[in-house]
């Protein structure tokens, strides 16, 4: 009747996050305008506690709440990613929010709620629960995207994100409805049983298609990547950092669950959709990025491209493939978070310095920042001994393992095309003459720690990736 105690452990991280979110909401009004930073620290503490709570979750792995939710290794892995992303994002947001004069508690609360939503998404074992989790994360990110209310671009980004997001969600929802209609249930295992008993009917497949539309939107798979550049460019940069790493990871996680566990037996059908989408995503992302001069937007395109690479591993539709996707998500989270945080840092008040030319001479004026940024860029580029390379390496090998040679070749060539624009930024940082009116910005502790963590992660995953790979593999195993 009443859910057992383990269930609480199993949603421990979410509980923690929500509790801290609400705490912030409660305390915020009583904090004087100048001291709002403390809310941020509170939020940071929340993420740390959530990370710690993963331990209990881990000890009490299993399904929770009449199997609507599963706290398995897979879910733990994704939790790890999204919560760390939130933690680092909070660290990276302090100065930004101060500069923008929008240092408010709600920001952190929303971030925590969003993270909780992603956590639900990672563990969901039932479509409607997934839907609710999805909405939790999306709606809070809609708001966060528009957090610079006075800024037209921020409004626009928020609006576009919101409209298109809910549009896609509607598709997702209708997909759920059709699936329900076809299988009398929305639980993944039931669906997969139904599929194993008799072949998929048009209704179910239609449902799957619509679900793909909805999730494809969240994981920015072409042609649903369309909104990404605008939204990422307009949103406050730390938020963009989160958007690019967290929700994407969560969405991929739920997509994995749905496509592998629920619809695993129809892989021959959805494989091609993934294949085509992967190719489109990579090509659009990379080619369009070639001509960008706005670094923030450039990174947005690059995130599209990387979604493409992840889809390559996804298309492998194998255990290793899942592991590769997870590993890539972790690696990508680390590097893209770092990159966007540096964009936020360099952008300065009002995000004025976003153009490549603004980075000219950074190598001399702020060598460490430049070195850090180059590290992230090279990692995004896929240079060996960085996280990005291992991610690609693992993904490609997973895909090749299923003999997806052409897909991998296309991906490989794409990654070289990508090299051009990443290097373009490096070029401006090191090879161009420093522009005169550049005043080196102060680097405060939180941002410094954030960068340190991301950089460390990037290198760690690049040099000693084995442990994380083992986790990813274990998570992949835990899916079935």
């Amino acid at each position: 009747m009443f859910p057992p105690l383990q269930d609480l452990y199993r949603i421990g991280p979410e509980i923690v996050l929500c509790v801290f979110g609400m705490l912030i909401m409660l305390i915020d009004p009583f904090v004087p305008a100048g001291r709002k930073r403390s809310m941020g620290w509170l939020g940071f503490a929340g993420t740390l506690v959530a990370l710690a709570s993963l331990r209990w979750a881990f000890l009490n792995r299993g399904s929770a709440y009449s199997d609507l939710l599963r706290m398995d290794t897979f879910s733990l892995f994704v939790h790890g990613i999204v919560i760390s992303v939130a933690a680092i994002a909070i660290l990276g947001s302090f100065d930004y929010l101060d500069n923008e004069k929008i240092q408010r508690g709600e920001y952190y609360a929303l971030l925590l709620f969003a993270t909780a939503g992603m956590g639900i998404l990672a563990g969901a074992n039932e479509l409607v629960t997934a839907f609710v989790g999805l909405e939790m994360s999306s709606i809070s990110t809609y708001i966060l995207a528009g957090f610079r209310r006075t800024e037209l671009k921020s409004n626009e980004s928020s609006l576009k994100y919101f409209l298109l997001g809910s549009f896609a969600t509607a598709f997702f929802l209708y997909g759920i409805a059709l699936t329900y209609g076809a299988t009398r249930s929305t639980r993944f295992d039931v669906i997969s049983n139904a599929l194993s008993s008799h072949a998929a009917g048009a209704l179910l497949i239609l449902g799957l298609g619509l679900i793909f539309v909805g999730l494809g939107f969240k994981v920015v798979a072409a042609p649903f990547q369309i909104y990404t550049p605008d939204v990422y460019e307009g949103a406050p940069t730390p938020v963009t950092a989160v958007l690019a790493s967290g929700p994407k990871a969560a969405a991929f996680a739920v997509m994995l669950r749905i496509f592998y566990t629920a619809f695993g037996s129809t892989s021959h059908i959805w494989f091609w959709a993934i294949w085509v989408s992967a190719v489109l995503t990579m090509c659009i992302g990379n080619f369009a990025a070639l001509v960008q001069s706005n670094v923030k937007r450039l990174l947005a395109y690059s995130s599209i491209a990387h979604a493409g690479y992840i889809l390559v591993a996804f298309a492998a539709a194998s255990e290793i493939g899942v592991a590769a996707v997870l590993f890539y998500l972790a690696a990508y989270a680390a590097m893209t978070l770092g990159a966007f945080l540096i964009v936020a840092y360099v952008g300065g008040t009002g995000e004025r310095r976003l153009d490549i030319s603004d980075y000219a001479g950074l190598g001399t004026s702020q060598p460490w920042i430049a070195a850090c940024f180059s590290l992230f860029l090279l990692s995004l580029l896929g240079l060996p001994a960085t996280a990005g390379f291992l991610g690609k390496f693992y993904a490609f090998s997973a895909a090749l393992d299923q003999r997806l040679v052409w897909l991998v070749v296309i991906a490989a060539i794409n990654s070289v095309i990508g090299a051009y624009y990443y290097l373009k930024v490096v070029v401006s940082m090191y090879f161009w003459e420093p522009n005169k009116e550049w005043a080196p910005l102060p680097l405060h502790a939180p941002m410094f720690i954030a960068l340190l963590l991301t950089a460390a992660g990037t290198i760690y995953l690049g040099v000693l990736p084995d442990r994380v790979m083992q986790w990813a593999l274990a998570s992949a195993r835990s899916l079935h």
Partner: protein
Amino acid sequence: MVPISYYIILSAVLFGLGVVGFVFKRNIITIFMSIELMLNAVNLAFVAFSREFNQLDGMIFVFFVIVVAAAEAAVGLAIIMVVARNRKSLNVEDVNLLKF
């Protein structure tokens, strides 16, 4: 006695109309309305199915959908208001600062 299929087809039609509206409308508010229309179509489908299967799950889902829709409406309208306030226009095609 009405065949369930009728309901489903109706919901499909409504959903499609919602899609059409989403693409067709220019006024942000009405665009959002067509999303609501789509959600309603989903609800109809849920209810119909749950009736067909003699289950309650579908109806529970409807409940959730409605709540979510409400929440979305609240946030969405807030966003729309901000945009409208800052732009003095509700035409979605005027919102084109971010491009290329």
